[in-house]
């Protein structure tokens, strides 16, 4: 619990919250920009709002997750902490939980801003279909879950290397690969993919089951166009996200416990 609190305080001390508030000033421009749309003003407001939230959460996940452990080592804070009666695993999980809590709080705050902006726009330009706030909340929730998984990867990379670059660029690579994995798999299964060599198809199939699949976490289209959600699919995705995050954290803890901290 102490590490969680320290992590949250450290994030606030770094004025990350102020940075987020400055970035969220973009929300003020969304109602005006949305009126450029000819037939879907509210939908465009939702697109812009959800994309902005998604982008801010992504940056936070990559940088907070990638920098946190690295900075502790650089500042020799790790050495002091590990002299306390506290396991390395708990320290690492505490860091993850602190960042995760901050992400959830940020998502809630930005979600509130989305609600205000979209309500304002939809009052003036009635959408074809009423805004589905449930779908909007689901989109924000699953975006946050995806970012938590990215934080877990950032923590994993941090547990391997003391370098600043591996956690940051490694997490960006995971984000890109995870976003494209479903497309690549669909391509391999398509008639066009049958022209690939069997070895390539087998490797692609294997990778599909190993790398994370982020396309399931993207519910923006449901939120923007008020399309119905499939509870079964959502439950499976949530389970997938939680289990995958847990597994990555277990690997990270295992590696970090055995690592020599010079």
């Amino acid at each position, binding site marked *: 619990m102490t590490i969680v609190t320290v992590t949250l305080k450290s994030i606030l001390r770094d004025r990350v919250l102020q940075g987020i508030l400055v970035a969220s000033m973009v929300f003020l421009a969304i109602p005006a920009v949305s009126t450029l749309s*000819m037939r879907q003003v509210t939908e*465009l407001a939702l697109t812009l709002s959800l994309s902005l939230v998604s982008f801010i959460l992504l940056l936070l996940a990559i940088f907070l997750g990638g920098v946190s452990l690295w900075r502790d080592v650089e500042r020799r804070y790790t050495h002091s902490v590990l002299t306390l009666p506290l396991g390395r695993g708990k320290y690492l999980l505490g860091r993850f939980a602190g960042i995760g809590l901050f992400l959830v709080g940020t998502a809630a705050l930005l979600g509130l801003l989305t609600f205000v902006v979209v309500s304002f726009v939809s009052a003036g330009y009635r959408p*074809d279909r009423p805004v589905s706030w449930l779908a909007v909340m689901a989109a924000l929730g699953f975006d946050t879950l995806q970012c938590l998984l990215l934080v877990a990867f950032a923590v994993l990379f941090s547990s391997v290397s003391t370098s600043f670059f591996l956690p940051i660029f490694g997490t960006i690579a995971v984000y890109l690969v995870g976003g494209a994995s479903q497309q690549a798999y669909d391509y391999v299964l398509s008639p066009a993919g049958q022209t690939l060599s069997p070895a390539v198809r087998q490797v692609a199939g294997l990778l599909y089951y190993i790398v994370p699949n982020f396309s399931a976490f993207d519910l923006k289209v449901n939120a923007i166009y008020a399309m119905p959600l499939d509870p079964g699919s959502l439950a499976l995705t949530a389970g997938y996200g939680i289990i995958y995050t847990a597994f990555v954290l277990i690997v990270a803890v295992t590696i970090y416990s055995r690592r020599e901290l010079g």
Partner: protein
Amino acid sequence: MKRYLFSAFCVLTVYFILLGPFTRTMEQKPYIEKLGLIPNPRLLSALFPDYQELLAASIIGKVILYYGSLAERLDQPGKVIYAADYPAMSRSIHAALRLDPYNMDGYYFGQSILAWDARQYVLATKLLEYGMQYRTWDWQLPFFAGFNYAYFLHDKEKAAEMYMRAGDLSGEPLFQKLAGRYLQEAGDTRMAIDYLGTLAKNARNPALRQTLQVRISAFEAVLAIEQARDRFMHEHGNLPANIADLVEAGYLEDTPIDPYGGEFYFDENHRVLTTSKFAFAAPRVPSDDDSSESPE
């Protein structure tokens, strides 16, 4: 301190000197250069997996702004001049709809501009049918497609099918009535006016609204000539030789003006046509049966 202020002043002065030529150069750049080359939608969705809807909205927004910037002197409809690069606009719209197949702006713009100005009837209709697979609740897409089939492609059966679908989705019996009415031989001009009126409804983009209003006024002129021609036929038992006959006989007060700058005339079947073909000059009009850009 004074030295810094002097340096800042010099830099700002140079900046403002450069700003004028820089802005003019940017304004003169062709559309492709302004928009940049749009990468393959598959590549875009792989690189920005969470932002497909945003990318689509951004591309369509650019096309709309570009189109709006072409319409000059909106207060004088007859002088609205287009020099639009329709193939580039078409490519952009298709790329955007590949990224977000639910985006209504893409279909609306595609139908408003591609079908009428670029005369890509088949392509515009394919685009609408592609959209129907996704926007399964939307009556507007089958309504637009129904019009294309009836008016441009002369496929009355498909037109009726589309209007019935629009009727089912909207719950409006009007569409079923339209389906029946449009299957009749007569009424094409009235159909076009009704259709364009629906398209123009709530069109907030000034350039697009102006375009549609010009087109509606052109079709209203055609309708006036057709009604005068039919009355002439009914009362004289023969058709008028030309539009001037209708004016001389008092069926028309004046020769109707084509807002596109052309002149109305009767063809050999006594249909009312215009030398402008209901469009301002649009260079590089692509072939109608160019279906290579179908989003499917």
